[in-house]
């Protein structure tokens, strides 16, 4: 068989070789009939809408966990369409005055808006029309008593479809998808965005020719050129496999050694882990060689929404992240917001000085219902994983006692309810307030670990708001005062046999690597992309050498001097 090539638009880079899986959407047939009992039809419609809302809520949570916040937002938008007063009025009028069945009335109403949005001829609004169609089909299926259509993939395949909606893709087992090909759609269509987020090649806009893909066993998908080769011979496949190999080799070149541990020339090993804020970040962290998570920010679950996430929603998202990380350590920071990043449902008052106000653990301790739900969710999701919990913005020993008391309370609740939860969890604190750093010898006796937040520690130590352009330069974590506080913290912790991590930007700055290493830092936590270079840097120094570098740096008198010195000893 001759190789045939069809041309579409490359929507997500990469090359895939594999068998086609033809995904066909069965559009529901709607009959139009006159009804006597209009009340019954209206009730049926309302029940179907209620069920659809429930499904969308579940899909949104699943999308949040599997893919990310953007994907979850699609289902929230769908739910908004279901509550549209103009649409609902139109549908109800069709039922009540024209005495039509609910299925027909719903189809007529949604088609009206789909056509109106398409007629504008704007790519973005056409994509919204597709969203309305997607949610219209969901309600139609419920009205007709149908179950959910889901695809079960048994082997890795190239998915070929006319188009793919968020509802189609959310339940797909993404690890078995080699590539996406669609007949319709453009570079900003849903499948293009999804494929990019997942790092899977995709070609869209293949036209009617995409149907030729249905019957063939094997295809090559080139997401860069937008070509799809049907029935390629062995030589062509071999050529593409080689190209795919060199492509990923180039991409992985910088990452080559990042899977190896970070060990100094004289054999001292330190942990290099990632700062993340979503399940998608966790996957990225592993790709860049993270040995665990040193900072999981949980704010993404709480911000930009009307009501807080409940315990079950949080448990599902945390569990998704812990499952990605397996047995690797994951340090979770409890909710860290304050007056500058308010959440409407957490009653925060407007403060003159939000950075010195009710933020971090202080806020959690004034909203113990929210705090308890988060702690229970973490403990539940942490069962069978290597969970560590830390608290932000701790200034005093009393606050440490208060948060520990909250953890005990959460444990007691879970124990009483007979739920499975993580039994062995290290409890630590962020050190970002100078008082905590100076009292580290006292605090070290009551906690399992410290994690130094150098961004805040620098701004509090130098009294310089890092969001104020006039003074932000002063908040330099390389200032000897900050480095001296870091030394105090590490020495105090080690004296009690406790470990210390650092999750500020300083950890990901290779310039600072030798001085932090020399001070005895146990764990470096940074944005995933910084990991390969920092690991490489650690491997170039010996422990005795960096001890001298640290000693020298801490004896200097300004941030400028420290920076100049570190540049002179850098690789």
């Amino acid at each position: 068989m001759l190789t045939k090539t069809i041309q579409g638009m490359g929507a997500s880079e990469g090359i895939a070789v594999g068998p086609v899986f033809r995904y066909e959407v069965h559009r529901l047939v709607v009959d139009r009939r006159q009804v006597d009992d209009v009340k019954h039809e209206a009730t049926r419609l309302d029940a179907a809408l209620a069920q659809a809302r429930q499904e969308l809520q579940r899909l949104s949570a699943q999308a949040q966990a599997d893919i990310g916040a953007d994907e979850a937002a699609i289902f929230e938008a769908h739910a908004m369409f279901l509550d549209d007063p103009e649409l609902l009025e139109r549908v109800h009028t069709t039922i009540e005055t024209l005495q039509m069945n609910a299925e027909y009335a719903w189809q007529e109403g949604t088609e009206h808006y789909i056509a109106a949005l398409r007629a504008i001829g704007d790519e973005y609004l056409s994509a919204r029309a597709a969203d309305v169609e997607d949610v219209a089909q969901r309600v139609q299926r419920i009205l007709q008593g149908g179950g959910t259509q889901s695809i079960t993939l048994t082997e890795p395949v190239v998915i070929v479809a006319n188009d793919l909606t968020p509802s189609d893709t959310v339940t797909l087992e993404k690890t078995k998808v080699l590539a996406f090909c669609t007949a319709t759609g453009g570079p900003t269509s849903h499948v293009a965005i999804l494929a990019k987020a997942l790092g899977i090649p995709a070609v869209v806009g293949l036209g009617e020719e995409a149907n030729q893909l249905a019957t063939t066993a094997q295809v090559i998908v080139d997401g860069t050129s937008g070509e799809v080769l049907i029935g390629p011979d062995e030589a062509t496949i071999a050529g593409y496999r080689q190209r795919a190999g060199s492509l990923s080799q180039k991409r992985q070149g910088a990452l080559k050694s990042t899977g190896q541990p970070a060990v100094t020339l004289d054999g001292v090993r330190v942990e290099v882990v990632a700062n993340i804020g979503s399940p998608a970040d966790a996957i990225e962290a592993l790709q860049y060689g993270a040995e665990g998570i040193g900072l999981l920010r949980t704010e993404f679950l709480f911000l930009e929404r009307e009501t807080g996430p409940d315990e079950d929603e949080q448990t599902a998202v945390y569990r998704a992240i812990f499952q990605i990380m397996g047995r690797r350590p994951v340090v979770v920071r409890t909710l860290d917001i304050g007056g500058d990043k308010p959440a409407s449902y957490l009653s925060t008052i407007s403060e003159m000085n939000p950075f010195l106000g009710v933020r971090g653990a202080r806020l959690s301790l004034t909203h113990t219902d929210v705090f308890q739900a988060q702690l229970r969710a973490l403990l539940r999701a942490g069962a069978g994983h290597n969970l560590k919990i830390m608290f932000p913005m701790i200034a005093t020993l009393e606050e440490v006692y208060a948060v520990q008391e909250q953890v005990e309370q959460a444990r007691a609740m879970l124990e009483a309810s007979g739920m499975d939860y993580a039994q062995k969890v290290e409890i630590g604190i962020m050190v970002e307030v100078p008082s905590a750093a100076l009292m580290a010898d006292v605090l070290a006796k009551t906690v399992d670990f410290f994690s130094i937040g150098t961004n805040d520690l620098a701004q509090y130590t130098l009294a310089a708001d890092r969001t104020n352009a006039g003074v932000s330069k002063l908040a330099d974590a390389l200032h000897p005062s900050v480095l001296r506080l870091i030394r105090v913290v590490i020495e105090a912790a080690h004296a009690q046999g406790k470990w210390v991590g650092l999750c500020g930007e300083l950890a990901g700055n290779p310039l600072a690597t030798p001085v932090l290493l020399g001070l005895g830092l146990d764990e470096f936590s940074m944005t995933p992309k910084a990991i390969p270079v920092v690991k490489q840097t650690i491997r170039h120094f010996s422990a005795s050498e960096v001890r001298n570098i640290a000693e020298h740096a801490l004896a200097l008198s300004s941030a400028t001097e420290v920076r100049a010195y570190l540049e002179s000893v850098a690789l």
Partner: protein
Amino acid sequence: MSVSSEVVVRHKVGLHARPAALFVKAASGFASRITVENLTKGTAATNARSILSVLSAAVQMNDRVRITADGGDAEAAVTALCDLIKNNFGEMG
């Protein structure tokens, strides 16, 4: 009581996506009947509480819109919705 005001949408995505959702949510918080019309494109006045109607008004960046409210809290509604647009939906820049 009927109140009306005109404002130019400066947000880069116009009255779409997140801004549209915020606009509709804000409009739903008032008792008055509220409409929005795209003066630049010459569309008819549509229900500001309806996301589908607001999207259909196809308001893009730099389009001028008129917001009209009719009811007891008309004044407050028009002020709040115009402010939302003027403040660029709470985003910087």
